Each structure stands twice: as C-alpha cells, then as structure tokens.
C-alpha cells in the first residue's frame, strides 16, 4: 500500500526567498505538511515578483511568479501579521501543533519578536527549530548582510570557479542558496530521527557559508595538508586530460568530455576515428596528455566542432567515454532521459497560468512509497481558513475580525508587476528567447500546457 514517508509531520515555514523555501519544499515532497507563513506587509516578494507567464504580470501578479511556483509547490499558504501582538500569539498556537519551525531571517529577528527557540520550547517542548543564515547565528560576523555571493564568495568556492585570467565567478544557479536549503533539510531530518528515538527536540543553526565549505572537502585539505592554495583553473582537472568543455557544431552548443585513464583514451581515439595526431608521443599516457592539455584541447575541439553536442555524446558514450552535452533550459525540458524518468512534473496553477512542467526538488524515487504530484504553490493567504479554522479551531467570524484588524489576510504590499527585460538580456547576450516554447513543451507534457482556463 502506498504511503508518504513523512506522513503526519507538520512544518511551520517562515522562510523567504530561496534557501529556506528550498528546504521546506524538499520536506513537502517527502510527505510532510508545510505551512508557509507570509504577511500582507512581508510577502515573499522576490520570488513572487518575477517571471510571469508569457511575460505578462496581469492581475494579482503576486500569484503568478514562476520562481515562487517552483520553490513553493505543495505548501499551504497563510497570511499572518507577525508584527502584531495577536499575530504572534496565533503563531504560538501554530507552533503548539507543529513539529518543526524553519526560518531564514537575519539573526535577532525571531528573538526580537519573543519567538526565539527558548520561548517556543515552552509552548512545544520537543520542537525542532532550524535557523538558516549567511554566517550563522553566533560569532562576531553574524550580522554580515549578504546574499548568495557572500555564502559562495566567503567559502572558497568563488575563488575556485572561473578561468585563471578572469575574475572569480559566482555560480549561475544560486548554488550557495541551494546548498544552505538542502543542508537545512538534511539536519532537520536528522533531528526528527533523533526526536523519534529520544523524544527530544532541538535548535539548529545552519550557516550558508559553512554548508558550502562542507562541499569543498578536498580543496580545503590541499591547503591543510600541503599549504597549497587551490584556485580557479577553468575546466581543467588536477590529473585527467582531456577534461574540458568543447565547442560543437551548432550555435552555442558544447560538450563536456573527461577521459579518466589510458583505457578510456584508447576508446576515445577509436571513437573519433584514430586520427594521426592521437599517436603523437605527447598524448600516449595520462601524465603526458595532462602536460600538453592545451594543445590536446585544440585537437579535441577540431573533432567536436564537426558534430552537434547530442551526436558527439552518443558517439563517445557508445565507446565507453564519459561525455555529456551541456544542456540549455529548452533541452533540459525536452531531454528524453529526464522526460522518461519524470523529472519535470506537470502542475496546474489554474486561472491565468495553467499547467506548467515544474522540476522536482527532491528527485529520489522510492519503491512502494506514494508517488504524488505536489499541489500548486499557494496563492497569497489561500489556506487561512484551513489553518486557522480547521487546524486551530477558530470560529469563522473570528477569522473575519482578524481580517478587519489586519492580523491576517489583506493584499500583499507588492511592487508593480514588471515583465522580464528579454530585450536587455538578448542585447547583453545573457540568454536567448525561444518564441515556440509553449508548443515545444506541449509535445512532451500535453497539449494543455499553458492554457489559461479558469480553475
């Protein structure tokens, strides 16, 4: 019989923007009930406010942002004014019926509200609370104001990313935020397991920078063991060659190739038709190939440039050589492997947005466990009645009073909806626009993708 892994676990989620919401989204995917708390004065603006369907902000733009839809799928959403005394009292009642609280405010915010862990523990003795921040909740720099560039930049990751003759490079995909959020989910589950065996709750302090350093184990150890400062080296590897990103035939098409040993090198040579240069003694063994890697790259690229990236990948993989096309966002959505494994799930966002493929945030497959598609991300305050009346047992007229007194509900404070400046992005060469994206998606995910019917 199908079941959910975290059935019956309730998470109260005060987190905003990326890291925290990524953490709670994973927990939802694993079967927990997540209640996302926003307020009219403090909605989750950045993710709600960007990238609207067909680039039209439309009515109620705060319910139309794609980042929000992706990172908050599956959650319940309430609007509760934490700035008011009564709002905080209601929050405490919610704490009483929850298993964990997740937050990523800057340090001190929760305490200033009288909602620090010691206070909340009085209400719910076995509560788990996870605080996520840039540099952690204690220490001399705890108030450093930062976003993902701080977490990555102060970890050694940025220093190790990019080409040696160019500035250190921030990740393109907010990896530091993801790492903080995923680490938060990992330790929250660790604490839940502990609570299950001992009955005890706890407080957890996750620093984004420390989470990222944890992913740089061998880079840190080259310094602690040998005093060597590793730094950015493009796509080169410390021992493999060829190991790089090579241009293919099409426009902005690339393939990654990494040859791990001499055996794979022989397979590689055969796959590309044993051209004469492969016999050159500069390339006969691992070490000499590595020494002549720049020259090698030019010769490898002379082959890749004749093929499109999927084709080159197929040729090399059939020969047993690690090779992977560098996929763009269109190709990711249409990739046969990801489509067959169901990496993107179609979620119906209803009126004005319609069905869209949304990536999984926790892409594990579990046998015998219920495989469910998450609910659409909540519209602002959509679950007030469920949470306040059904869960807390408030009468409905009480809800009305709270709305009138602006403790709950209301219209979020929101900047005017702005379309994405595709023109600017194209001018800067920072991306490209595919006018047929809806019909491309419909081929793989159903003809009703993006149809904005009411619902």
């Amino acid at each position, binding site marked *: 019989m199908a079941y959910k892994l975290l059935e019956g676990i309730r998470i109260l989620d005060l987190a905003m923007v990326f890291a925290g919401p990524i953490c709670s989204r994973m927990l939802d995917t694993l079967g927990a009930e997540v209640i996302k708390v926003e307020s009219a004065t403090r909605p989750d603006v950045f993710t709600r406010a960007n990238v609207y369907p067909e680039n039209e902000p439309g009515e109620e733009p705060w319910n139309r942002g794609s980042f929000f839809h992706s990172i908050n799928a599956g959650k319940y959403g309430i609007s509760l004014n934490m700035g008011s005394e009564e709002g905080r009292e209601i929050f405490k009642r919610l704490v009483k019926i929850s298993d964990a609280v997740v937050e990523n405010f800057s340090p001190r915010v929760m305490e200033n509200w009288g909602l620090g862990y010691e206070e909340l523990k009085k209400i719910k003795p076995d509560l788990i609370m996870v605080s996520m921040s840039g540099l952690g909740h204690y220490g001399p720099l705890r108030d450093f104001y930062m976003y993902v560039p701080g977490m990555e930049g102060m970890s050694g990751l940025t220093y190790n990313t990019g080409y040696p003759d160019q500035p250190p490079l921030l990740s393109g995909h907010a990896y530091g935020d993801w790492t903080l959020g995923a680490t938060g989910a990992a330790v929250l589950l660790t604490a839940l397991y502990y609570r299950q065996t001992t009955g005890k709750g706890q407080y957890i302090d996750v620093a984004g920078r420390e989470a990222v350093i944890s992913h740089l184990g061998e880079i840190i*150890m080259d310094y602690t063991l040998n*005093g060597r400062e590793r730094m950015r080296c493009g796509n080169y590897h410390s021992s493999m060659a060829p190991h790089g990103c090579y241009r293919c035939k099409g426009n902005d098409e690339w393939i990654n190739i990494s040859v791990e040993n001499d055996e794979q090198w022989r397979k590689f040579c055969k796959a590309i038709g044993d051209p004469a240069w492969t016999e050159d003694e500069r390339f006969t063994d691992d070490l000499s190939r590595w020494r002549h890697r720049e020259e090698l790259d030019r010769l490898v690229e002379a082959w890749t440039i004749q093929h499109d990236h999927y084709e080159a990948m197929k040729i090399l993989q059939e020969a047993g050589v690690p090779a992977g096309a560098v996929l763009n966002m269109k190709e990711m959505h249409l990739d046969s492997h990801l489509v067959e494994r169901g990496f993107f799930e179609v979620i119906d966002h209803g009126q004005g947005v319609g069905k869209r493929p949304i990536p999984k945030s926790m892409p594990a497959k579990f046998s015998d*466990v219920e495989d469910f598609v998450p609910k659409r991300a909540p519209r602002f305050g959509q679950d007030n009645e469920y949470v306040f009346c059904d869960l807390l047992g408030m009468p409905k007229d009480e809800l009305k009073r709270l709305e009138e007194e602006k403790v709950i509900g209301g219209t979020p404070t929101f900047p005017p909806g702005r379309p994405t400046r595709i023109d600017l992005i194209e001018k800067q060469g920072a991306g490209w626009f595919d006018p047929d994206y809806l019909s491309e998606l419909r081929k793989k995910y159903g003809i009703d993708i993006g149809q904005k019917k009411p619902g």
Partner: protein
Amino acid sequence: MGEQAFSNLKVIDCTEGVAGPYCTKLLADFGAEVIKVEKPEEGDVARGMGPFLKDEPHPEKSGTFFYLNTNKKSVTLNLKSETGVKIFKELVREADLLIENFGPETTSKLGLSYEIFREVNPRLIMTSISPYGQTGPYREYKATNLTVYGLGGAMYTMRPGTNPADRPVVEGGLQADYSAGLLSFIATVAALINQTRSNRGTWIDISAMECMASTLTMHFGEYSYIGLSRKTNPWAIHGYPIGYSSPCKDGWISLTPGIGGAPNIALLIGKPELQDDPLLAKPSARMAEPEKFDALIVPWLKEHDKWEIAKEAQELRLAFTPVLSPGELQNDEQLKAREFFAKTNHPMMGEVTYSGAPAKLSESPWRAGRAPLLGEHNEEIYGRLGYSKEDLIRMREEGVI
C-alpha cells in the same frame, strides 16, 4: 547535549568515489556505525585521488578519502566471489540500511538486487546512487563530475554576466558529486524516519544528473513561462548585476550594487556628492554603463583591502563581501569563533585539519573522527558475525577479504 542522532543505526556502505561516501559520511559523523565494504587490495578509488599528504601518493594518505570517510569502519570483501556474496548477505541481514553505487548494470550482474536483500532483511532500506538513475536511456552512460554538471543544466548558466559569450565553466570542486551525496542523505533519512515508525523498507533510486538539475531553482521557470534560456546567473532579472568580483588591493571583493543601499556606494568611496548620481543611485545603471561605473569605483577598491572594504560597506548596509581563498578560511574570525574546522589524529597522516560540522545541532552533536585504514575493522566486524581468526586467514588466502 544528548547522544548522537544515529547512534543506534547500522549502515552497510558499498559506495566509493565522492557522492556515495559523502552521504554515508554524514550518517557516520552524526553517529551511525557505517561499515564501508571495500575491494581487497585496492579499496575505494578515492584512496587514489589527491591531494595526498606532502603530495606523496599513498592509499592511506589521500585527503579526499580522509574527508569523505571520517568515522567509518572499513572491511574488505570480494563481491565477485561466492563466499564474499554470502558474507555480504550476513552483513546486510544485521543492517538498517544499505547504500551502494555499483550502477544498474553491475547490480544485476553481481546478483545484488533489492529483491534479494529484502528476502534476508524485510525492513531494509537500500539507497542506490548512480550518475543517471536505474532507468532511462542514459542509465549505462559513463560519467564524471564534469559531464554530470553539464547534463544537469548547471553548466550552461556558468558564464560571467559581464561576458556571457564565454565558454561555460564548471563550478569549482566536485559539486555534482556533493549535491548528489547530500540529496541521497536527505532521501535516506526520510526513509529511516518512516522505518522506525512502521518497520517498512524501501528502495531509493538517486540520479546525480537529476540532483544537479534540482539545484537550478530559477532557470527552468524562465523557459516554461517566458521561453528564455539564460546563460548567466538570473539575478540580472531586470538588468541588475549581483555578486560579480572586482579587484581590490589584496584580492577580490564581491559587489552587489543591485540591491538595497546602492546609493551608499558614494559614501563608501568617500564621494558623498555623488549620492544622487544615477550611476550609483540606479541599480541598473552599472549594467548599462559598466565602464563608467567601474571607472568610478575600482580605483578606490584597489587602494583598500577586502576586509576593510567589506566591513565599511556592511556598516552602510551594502552587501559587499570578500572573496576568500581556502587558506584565508583558516584564519577567519567567524569560523574560529564557531570552531568550524576539526582536527583529528590519523595513524599514517598525523594531525589532520578538515571542514567540520555542516550545521550546529544543540542536542544531537556532530563528531570529529578519522578515516579508516583499508580493512582495519575486518577482525571486529567479521568476528561479530562469528568468523574466527583462522577463518579470516583462510579467507584472506582465498582472496575473499
């Protein structure tokens, strides 16, 4: 503080390299008994991966292996021998969890399927980590961190916002491996929570390519909502640059003029008269006229140290932060105050310093520890199963352990 979270947990670990061992390292560092099953003679491939202590290649001196295998126990076992498979099943019978990264092909060849293990241990959780997953057209494709990073969509975004025409570049270190390891841990612990409540096991299929793709929180929506495929970070939504590195006197500083107190840049560089200058006041201006913006600010940056700039900027609520090297982390006041780095003695490596707890847990602590020597725990673990010293000598001669 109480006990460690996983102190009652027994794990059989048949992973090698980076992703799988990172997952089981987290279990071991939070208290689980992790029995690492290695190939006789050669062991985990990571034993051959640098950096080595004093650059001397040696299977017991790899920093990569050390970091990824702290607190584990090592046994050697030849899974290609009949006796080996028999002993392996005895290990699995006693375990809560089996984690492997053989890949779909090998699992069926060796007869090491979940179905078989479930017969000996009905509540077993088995986590299978592979580059592409157990199903799908790429399932038998070969992979390295680099190729998974590209197939996961992340690499396409790895170009500087200031020069997006560049050849994509892989993120530093081994992020496709680490992110797969972290997600494997999350999935596994969720299954363990269920196991303690219901005694049910499950088989978990993890694809590193999908793990990498799942770290992209924004780019996919840009395609499915507006048809955009972006080649850089998405922070420049409305043309704002965020988090690009600018040179300063002693290295690099990461600038984020797109948010919040951008006008305070004028105060930072000691030119308050420019506070209303659109070049500084308008976040998008830097993107529109990068040369003009840089001409104004870079000369000042080049006269100041990264920490000096960052601390002054922070006072002005500017999210400017230093770009730190691995060595600089060792003297970082915040990391010191939080006792982030751990130190442990190793019989062949001496005192080793390495990255410590990924988070601070108030009740169930993380622990420091060292990596095991190859086969260090054969006697202890096989002894527990009832094998005598003589049995072990015989099995060694037969190449089983």
